[in-house]
């Protein structure tokens, strides 16, 4: 086959044009995640915590199936990004692993809310954090707060330390070093876990709760929940913390609350939300909780994620959509769906009713 003198460059041009147009086609075909803002009336955009990403996907799928014509996008870019997008008005609701602080709240601070409206913090996702371990010959482990904090702070370094042995009668603990694995990336799981240690063992755990694991305490770091679970599974004599649903095959330590030993079950985790008080000085329907991590019968290491919404939306359609969608998410049905899809702990009926009342107040 002969190639004419013009044919080759033309073919090259054609190929280049094809490639370029293919790129362009990709860009436009890419579904906009969250940034659509005030597009169509039946479109709702949310952004925030990746912890409840699986639950959000389930809620969205269920809600869209039940309401044709409604499109909801949730982009799991992280709690901080979600709060920022909600403040700027890029999204109509945000997911966050912590409620807005007092100084962040106020009238006329949120893009999608009217000038006289404040934001509401509504707990819609509760998930127990398991302390996972992989120790030769150890099936069950019981840890009191001081011991657990000591292990993660690096002050208890051997598995046969008398402090661990004291609460584990009849268990043969190996004379081996402890490798404590924590998250290397910023995470709401770390925040809630360190908050628990700080509340329950303030003498040992001297650092305040934070998304970043305090570097002063050392230990092994791994990126993301799955990598922590992986490091604990493949390593020797390891311990770590992760979302309970993500670490089913590993041993879950029992934590001491008062005189009880509790496992990370859904019921015990949901109890903490009931036993916690709403932060003082909040609006009538705001449900930002001061988690009480030393409450009886309640598993203390729990992650609570909030939906951040407006009291009064600028756009009545947005308000109706948010009421419908977040209302479904917080309902018994929605909570059950999330428990099945994401392994979360369903809200108790009391808390569910409180959230429903708050949602009713949205205008």
């Amino acid at each position, binding site marked *: 086959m*002969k190639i004419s*003198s013009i044919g080759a460059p033309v073919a090259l041009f054609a190929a280049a044009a094809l490639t370029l147009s293919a790129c362009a086609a990709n860009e436009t075909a890419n579904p906009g995640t969250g940034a659509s803002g005030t597009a169509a009336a039946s479109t709702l955009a949310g952004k925030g915590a990746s912890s409840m990403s699986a639950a959000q996907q389930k809620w969205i799928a269920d809600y869209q199936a039940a309401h044709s014509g409604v499109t909801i996008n949730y982009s799991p870019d*992280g709690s*901080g*990004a979600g709060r*920022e997008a909600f403040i700027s008005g890029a999204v109509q609701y945000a997911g966050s692993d912590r409620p807005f602080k007092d100084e962040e709240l106020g009238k006329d601070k949120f893009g999608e809310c009217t000038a006289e409206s404040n934001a509401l913090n509504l707990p819609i996702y509760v998930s127990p954090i398991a302390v996972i371990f992989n120790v030769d010959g150890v099936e069950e482990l019981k840890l009191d707060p001081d011991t657990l904090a000591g292990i993660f702070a690096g002050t208890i370094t051997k598995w046969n330390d008398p402090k661990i042995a004291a609460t584990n009668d009849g268990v043969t603990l190996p004379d081996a070093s402890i490798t404590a694995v924590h998250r290397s990336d910023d995470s709401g799981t770390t925040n809630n876990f360190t908050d628990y240690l700080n509340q329950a063992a303030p003498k040992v755990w001297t650092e305040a709760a934070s998304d970043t694991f305090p570097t002063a305490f050392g230990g*092994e770091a791994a990126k993301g929940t799955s990598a922590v679970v992986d490091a604990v599974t*493949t390593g020797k004599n390891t311990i770590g913390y992760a979302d309970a649903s993500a670490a089913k095959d590993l041993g879950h330590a029992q934590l001491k609350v008062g005189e009880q030993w509790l496992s990370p079950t859904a019921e015990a985790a949901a109890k903490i939300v009931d036993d916690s008080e709403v932060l003082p000085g909040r609006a009538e329907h705001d449900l930002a909780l001061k988690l009480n991590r030393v409450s009886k019968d309640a598993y203390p290491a729990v992650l609570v994620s909030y939906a951040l919404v407006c009291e009064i939306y600028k756009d009545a359609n947005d308000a109706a959509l948010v009421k419908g969608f977040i209302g479904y998410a917080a309902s018994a049905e929605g909570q059950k769906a999330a428990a099945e899809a994401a392994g979360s702990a369903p809200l108790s009926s009391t808390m569910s009713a409180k959230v429903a009342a708050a949602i009713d107040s949205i205008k």
Partner: protein
Amino acid sequence: MTSVTQSTREVTPTPTPEHPVNKARERIGDRVFSGLATGSGVTILLILAMVAGFLLVQAFPALATSPAELEAKGYGQFWSWILPFAWGTVYASFWALLMAVPVAIGIALFISHYAPRRLASSLGYVIDLLAAVPSVVFGLWGSMVLAPAVQPLYLWLNTYLGWIPFFSGQPSGTGRTLLTASIVLAVMILPIITSLSREVFLQTPVLHQEAALALGATRWEMIKMAVLPFGRAGIVSSVMLGLGRALGETMAVAMVLSGAPVITLEILTSQNPNTIAAVIAQNFPEAYGLKTNQLIAGGLTLFVITLVVNSIARLIVSRYKEFSGAN
């Protein structure tokens, strides 16, 4: 491509290389191709300038904010924040090169001068195949297979060679240490160094080699006298390319290394200096506000480090060229 000249039934006098005939009618193909080639050259410069511009603009808020304000917001001062990661980047690459270079040159020499021809070509393919493995696969392999496998070896090193600063400290229970990350990096840069060195070794003039053999040199002496001096510049540039990859490698390190913001010589412990690229990958997804700028400023630092490394490589290559056996 001979058909191209045949089809344009025009007899042009063959121009001498020194004095091209300017009057020869320019063909449309020539114009299009020279335009495309020039365009590509300009594009790469433009892209580089745009990347540098993006880094500078986005990094500016983090660099311009006063240290006190950064401290107050919990980000930490920029230079004390970036220093451990810059150290980790360079340190991990150093160990990777230390392990990869001798092996890579060994493989390259084996392929070019020792192996039977058939084995040599298939071995070359296998090495090139290694370069095609995505880094995320190396990361998974490193964290799930390699780390647990080498952990007992680390315990041994720590027990018996713990007096050497590198091997001291409390060894990690998972094996996800700087040394493991460096081994993964070494495997990843092996094909680059091997392929380039092999090509250079194959270019050694046969006359040089035969002359050495004729003087009674053994094969090793011939390689030492003829092949290695000739290939020195090539080896250095291949090593620098490998180093460039090791410095910038993100995914594999992020998955394998148990990183922390520390500066240490120890390579077997749980607390390893993280690399800049891995820090960006780990923290960017959930970063917002000034944190984003801080991470991009970290990227700018990495950009500068690689630029410096490349310049040094250029310098070395141009210096060695004059002394190579090639002239």
